[in-house]
Each structure stands twice: as C-alpha cells, then as structure tokens.
C-alpha cells in the first residue's frame, strides 16, 4: 500500500523499471487521497481527469495528445455501454514527464479499441486498466514505442475479464536505441465467470544498439477452465542476415536497418486507424528512424 500522498518507487511491484517517485522528485504536485490509481489521483490534482460515457449502441473516436513542458498528468474514465464502441488514439510526444491513465469499463457486446504511439520522455507512462463487465465484449490494445537516448516509455495495461466470451487482442512493438528504456507490462486476468474468453497478447521489441534497454512483464492469470489465452514476448536485435540481403541489393546500411525496423513497427498499427492518423504515425516513425540514425 502506498500512503495517500506517497508515490511508488522502483521497489514497488509494477514500478520497478519506471520509478515514479524518482521522476517526480522535487516537484510539489497536488495529489488527492483515495483508492484510485496513483496516476488518476495525480491527474485529478492537476484537474486533468475527464469522464466519457458512450451510450448503448453509439460509436465514438477520440484522439489524445500527451506530453509537453513540465509534468503532463491526465486520466480518463470511460464507460462503454452495451453494444457501444469506443476508439482511442493516444499520441505521446516529446516532454519532461508524461503520465496518462485510463480506466475503461465495457458492457455487453461493447468494443474498446486503443492505439498508443509513444516517443518517450524523461519519464512517460501510459497505463490502461480495462474491466470487461459485459459478455461478448471486444478489446483491441495496440501500441508502438520508440525510445532514443535519455527517453523512457512505459506501456502498462491490465485487462480483467469478468464476463463470458470476451475477445482480447494486444500487439505492442517497440524499438530502443542506446540509452533509451522501453517498458511493457501486460496483464490478462480471466475470472471464473469469463468462460470462452479468447485473449492474445504479443509484445516484441528491437534493441537497435548496445546499451538499449527493454523490460517486459507479460502475465496471464486464469481462473476459468474453458478459455483460449496466449502470449508471446520477444526482444532482440535486427537480423544481420536480413540487413545483408538488403545491402546486397544496393540499400545503404542505414536505410536497410531503417526499412526493417519500420516494417516491424508498422505491423502494430491497427487497420481501423483513419488515413490521416495512420500517415501521421508513419511519418513519426520515419522521423524517429531518420533522426537518430
């Protein structure tokens, strides 16, 4: 337990690779007491908490841009009611400390789709907590993180399935350069009532240079007996044989590396992104690959 106004440090499970206490040291931020998630309490303190209700049968798409000077702490509480559908795109850009928390509750047959692209900051954590309360709900959680020297990006998520026939798909891809730190923590909890759940989690990271760091903690916690649950987690380097193949065809080494890295990251972009956002994210990835090569 954390005291009402204390912040979790790296000795606290879930914050080991993203020490919030250290990141906010010396900054006197208002934080409200209570049972809410620490990031939500910081967001309320900063008056950046918003509630979203998507009424039964309705569809909504939001685009959220996180980051900037100083500390940007914000939170969303999203209620996606029966048969409703919510899509959320989060773009985290440059900044000092970027904190975003969203808590999502899904009704029967509801859909929540999220795509996060994080360029990292001195400290950046985007945390998603999902409660699948209604049967037959669908969740898609995709993300890309790109961390260069001095940058940190943490994508943490938890999906708690409480009702039957949940369908959950998660694909997160990341790339880290020397001095950059990426963190992926994903947890699926399938409660006893969540029979026939079908959940897949995938996280893959590329360590582009020596001295790049990626920490991953995928967790499945299953209490129902008739479920399909799987996770895959890899982190590694670019395949030198593939790089040679591209260079043999005439691509300079830097371009060959960028081409393969780009293709790897693009695979985490969901097909529901609209064209403008898709193009923006691609441009962001290209700029990142070009700027730091």
């Amino acid at each position, binding site marked *: 337990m954390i005291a009402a106004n204390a912040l979790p440090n790296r000795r606290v499970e879930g914050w080991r690779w993203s020490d919030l206490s250290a990141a906010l040291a010396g900054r006197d931020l208002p934080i409200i007491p209570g049972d809410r998630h620490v990031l939500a309490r910081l967001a309320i303190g900063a008056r950046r908490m918003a509630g979203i209700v998507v009424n039964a049968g309705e569809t909504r798409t939001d685009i959220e841009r996180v980051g900037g000077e100083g500390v940007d702490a914000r939170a969303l509480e999203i209620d996606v009611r029966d048969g409703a559908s919510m899509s959320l795109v989060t773009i985290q850009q440059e900044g000092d400390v970027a904190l975003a928390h969203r808590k999502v509750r899904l009704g029967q047959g509801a859909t929540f789709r999220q795509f996060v692209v994080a360029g990292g900051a001195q400290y950046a954590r985007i945390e998603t907590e999902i409660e699948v309360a209604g049967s037959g709900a669908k969740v898609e959680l995709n993300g890309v993180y790109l961390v260069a020297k001095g940058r940190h990006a943490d994508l943490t998520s938890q999906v708690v399935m409480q009702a039957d026939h949940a369908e959950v798909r998660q694909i997160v891809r990341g790339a880290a350069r020397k001095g950059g730190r990426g963190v992926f923590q994903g947890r699926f909890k399938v409660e006893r009532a969540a029979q026939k759940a079908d959940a897949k989690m995938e996280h893959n990271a590329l360590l582009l240079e020596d001295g790049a760091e990626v920490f991953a903690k995928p967790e499945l916690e299953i209490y129902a007996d008739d479920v399909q649950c799987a996770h895959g987690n890899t982190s590694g380097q670019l395949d*030198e*044989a593939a790089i040679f*193949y591209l260079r043999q*065809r*005439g691509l300079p080494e830097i*371009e060959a590396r960028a081409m393969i890295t780009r*293709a790897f990251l693009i695979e985490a972009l969901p097909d529901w992104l609209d064209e403008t956002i898709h193009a923006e994210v691609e441009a962001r990835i290209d700029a990142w690959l070009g700027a730091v090569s």
Partner: protein
Amino acid sequence: MLELTNLHARVVPEDGPSREILKGLSLSVPKGEVHAIMGPNGSGKSTLSYVLTGRGGYEVTEGAALYEGESLLSLPPETRAAKGLFLSFQYPLEIAGVPVMTFVRAAMNAQRKARGEAEVSAPDFLKLSRIAAQQLRIDPEMLKRPLNVGFSGGEKKRLEIYQMLMLQPRFMILDETDSGLDIDALKVVADGVNALRGPDRSMLVITHYQRLLDYIKPDRVHILSAGRIVKSGGPELAHELEKSGYDTVMGTP
C-alpha cells in the same frame, strides 16, 4: 571482368574459433562469359559468394579480388551492388512488412543514386516490373506481398531472378539457384537468366548438379574442392562429373 588471385578467406563466427574456408582460390571470369563452379558440400562455394559480395563474418587473409581492375574487398556490400554485383541467394531472406515492389524500387533508386543517375519514374518502374513478371510467369499480386514471406522455395528463387531482371546487374552470382525448382520452373528461371546474357555481363553459376547447366550453358566449368579450384574445363567437365562423381574426376590429375 573478375580476377581472383590466391584468395584465402576464413569464416569468423561470433562465438567459436575462425576457420579457413578458401585456401588459395584463383579464378578469372572474362567479360561476357558464364562460368560454373561445382563442388561438394563444404568446399567453399557459398563462402566464395559471400566474400565477393561483402557479407560480414568473413575475413580475407590473403590474395586479391579485382572487379574491372578495382579491388572489391574493402567496399561495403551496397557499393559492390551499385557497381553491378548481384547475388541470387541460396536461401533468400524473408523480410516481413516490406512489399516486393517497394523494396525493389528502393534498391533500384539507391543504386542509381550511388552511380549518380536519376531515380526511376513510377511509370517506368511499373513497366519494367510488368515485363519482368511476365517473363518469369510471376503473378503480379505476389509483388505486392511482403518480400519472400510465405513464398515457396520455388517462388523465392523466381523472385531472386525477378530482382535480377529489374536491377540489371553486370556480374551475377547464382548460388544454387536450381535448388527447390521443379523442371518447368527451372526452365522459366533459366530463360530469365539467359535474357541477361550479353557481351558486357558475366556470370558465376554455383551448383551441385549438372541439371541447371543444361539450361544455362557455361563457357567454363571449375571444380572447387577444399577451398581451391582443382580442375577447370569446358562444359563437358560438368557431364563428366555427373557421370563419374567428384571423387573420380578430382582424382584424375
């Protein structure tokens, strides 16, 4: 066009000791000629193709490799490619997320840029691609798919030759291009390769079997064994090998 003199090279694995593979290989391929290299497993055929194209993990310890009078050995792979060196891989790599045409166009333009030439225009590129695909009987849909991902062995080999037709190299190394091909595919691929034969182009055809050489007729045949050329001759040497085996042929002085 290509002059190899007393080439010694070793493979340097990331872990483990290095091993000498090429042990004094000498070979001359004049402009316009097709030479075949045959040899048993482990004789150094693939190492030769990698040393010539500049793959990492190989170290040349002695000897020279001149391409049009210029030493190749210190050049990066992409510079060699821009100078016209092309390797048709024995095992082409799968590149997820990169469509064939996107890749080939990027490669073509990178080579042109390195040579100080203008980029290929989109209509010109599509026209070249259509002609090459037709020649090799490649379904145009395949060219929109990620490079080699999920392609059969035969499809991958066809795609190597498609890239060759598109990039119009001047010195081609075909490493076991016949493996994985049935006889019909072999003919199609050989026709594609033969379309590139000309007075300004040379080829090194690396193969285990004589079969490919029925379709891509070599001017000279060399036998590689334990890292050296141990015997050279005309096309009849390949037939002799096929009939009597490496041991017998190499045993004859």
